[in-house]
């Protein structure tokens, strides 16, 4: 579904990504991990066509560069790490923005667009908040509203940049489970950046470890999440054990490094 080869991005004077490859099959979940500033968000933006990049990106076997903006938006939905939330807008209006690629340029939304938005809000526990203003929400509520907008887009590819950083444990699980269900039921292809390595290993089929703008490891969670790799690239002292389902669990070790 996504095939990116040799993607490089220059921002200003700096080479932020160099020669990164990513291959995600339909219905798969890949988590992009790496320390702050590694280029994770930039990689998602490149996939979304929001930054100038070199290298080739295929979305659904079509060169991404040739897709028209609306067609691309129907194919890929993106929830940014630091979204701009217009404080005066209602939660419903904001989530409804996700339907933009389906609404004619000067037209208005259809009943179907409203239904989709409503059901997404309900699924994210936001039904009660629908008529509240976005500026009045808590951090976690905001994050779910942004996710709602992305889900309302009903695109087969979902790019989520840190979708759970502000969420409490229960909502974190709820959001990740929801994405996982959608992926299984509708065959969504998911790419998320995640800082919680255990969570990344728990939900993703594959991990891509970025460091300094390069892909330094990729593959199944148990192959990528090694004490050695995490220690080196995150500069952290950790202990990694297989959890009950065999997936790696990352523990911080006190006193290091």
């Amino acid at each position, binding site marked *: 579904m996504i095939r990116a080869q040799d993607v490089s991005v220059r921002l200003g004077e700096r080479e932020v990504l160099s020669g990164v490859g990513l291959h995600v099959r339909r219905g798969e979940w890949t988590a992009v991990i790496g320390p702050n500033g590694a280029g994770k968000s930039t990689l998602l933006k490149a996939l979304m*066509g929001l930054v100038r990049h070199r290298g080739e990106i295929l979305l659904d076997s079509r060169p991404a560069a040739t897709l*028209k903006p609306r067609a691309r938006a129907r194919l890929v939905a993106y929830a940014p790490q630091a979204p701009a939330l217009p404080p*005066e807008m209602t939660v419903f209006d904001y989530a409804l923005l996700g339907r933009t690629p389906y609404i004619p340029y000067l037209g208005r939304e259809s009943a179907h667009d409203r239904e989709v938005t409503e059901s997404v809000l309900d699924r994210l526990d936001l039904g009660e908040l629908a008529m509240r203003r976005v500026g009045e929400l808590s951090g976690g509520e905001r994050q779910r509203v942004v996710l709602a907008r992305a889900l309302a887009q009903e695109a087969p590819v979902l790019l989520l940049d840190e979708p759970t950083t502000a969420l409490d444990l229960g909502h974190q699980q709820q959001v990740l489970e929801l994405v996982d269900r959608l992926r299984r039921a509708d065959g969504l292809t998911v790419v998320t950046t995640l800082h919680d390595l255990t969570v990344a290993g728990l939900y993703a089929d594959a991990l891509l470890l970025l460091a300094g703008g390069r892909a330094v490891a990729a593959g199944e969670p148990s192959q990528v999440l090694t004490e050695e790799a995490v220690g080196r690239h995150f500069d952290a002292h950790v202990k990694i054990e297989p959890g009950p389902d065999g997936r790696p669990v990352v523990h911080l070790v006190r006193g290091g490094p």
Partner: protein
Amino acid sequence: MVTRARPSRARPLWVACALGVLAASMLAGLLDGAADISPWQVVLQVADWLPFGHVDSGLAPVEQGLLFELRLPRVLVAAVVGGLLAVAGAAYQGVFRNPLADPYLLGAAAGAGLATTAAIVLLPSSAASIPLAAFVGALGGVFLAYTLGNTAGRAGGTATLVLAGVAVTSFLTAIQTFVQQFNVEELQRVYAWILGDVGGGWEQLWLVLPYAAVSSVVLLLHGRMLDVLSVGDEEAAGLGVRAARVRFTVLLAASLATAAAVAVSGLIGFVGIVVPHVVRRLAGGSYRIVLPLSLIGGAAFLVLADLVARTVLAPAELPIGVVTMFVGAPFFVGVLRMTRRAVT
């Protein structure tokens, strides 16, 4: 059960209320404190003017003539200009994602000011050249700022556009001041123009109407798009919208509206900022609400401002631009206080 969520839109009730206020203001504008004419007679007279048949208002031909030749065009010009400035202001605020943007942000005022000053100085006897000069000057100022902003920065970025507007404004204003210094005897006329006047008669109305119609239709159609722009260019792109294109179209229409308003009425301040804000406070922040209600509310506001301008010092007239600021500022503060919200 929670109330069913609905997308924001100008609800018929709100539109009806706004139209009611507008109709009442226009009626008051037509009456203008004349003791011998009753409101009902004016209503009848208006019905008589409409092309559906004859209604006897009982007004003398002289009174009819006064209403038709002087007050009616004046009220209508005030309404059209007020509506245009308010809707253009709202559009500028949407495009620049800045609630303090006004229709003169991109050099329209400075361009019109310079061109009009030049027209007054170079063609002192031809009053007819002023609207044309103001119109061309306003569009010229915006064009200059837009081109400058787009060549200096990232295509269509808003920050550089605003800065270009600032640069163009001070540059053109400097030239205007320079020209004025050498033609002090014309200063009075330049200032009279700057402070605004909607008493130009039917001619002015026909001048402004085509531009008013086209630009307001285009702007009203872009309400949803301005909502999309409010999440920023990058996220708008993620939703399949080319922000720079939307911005160009909206700026074009809003600048046309501004130029048309400036051409017939000079530089009337405050309408473009106050009215959209009052609407936002009272009815909601979505541009699908703000644009149509600003159009109607701006019309009502300027009709009333003109009424004040004509009556407080009668028979002398205050410049309407002075009234909009003098009345507008406290009114604005009042609305802000009334709708005060906990701001963090």
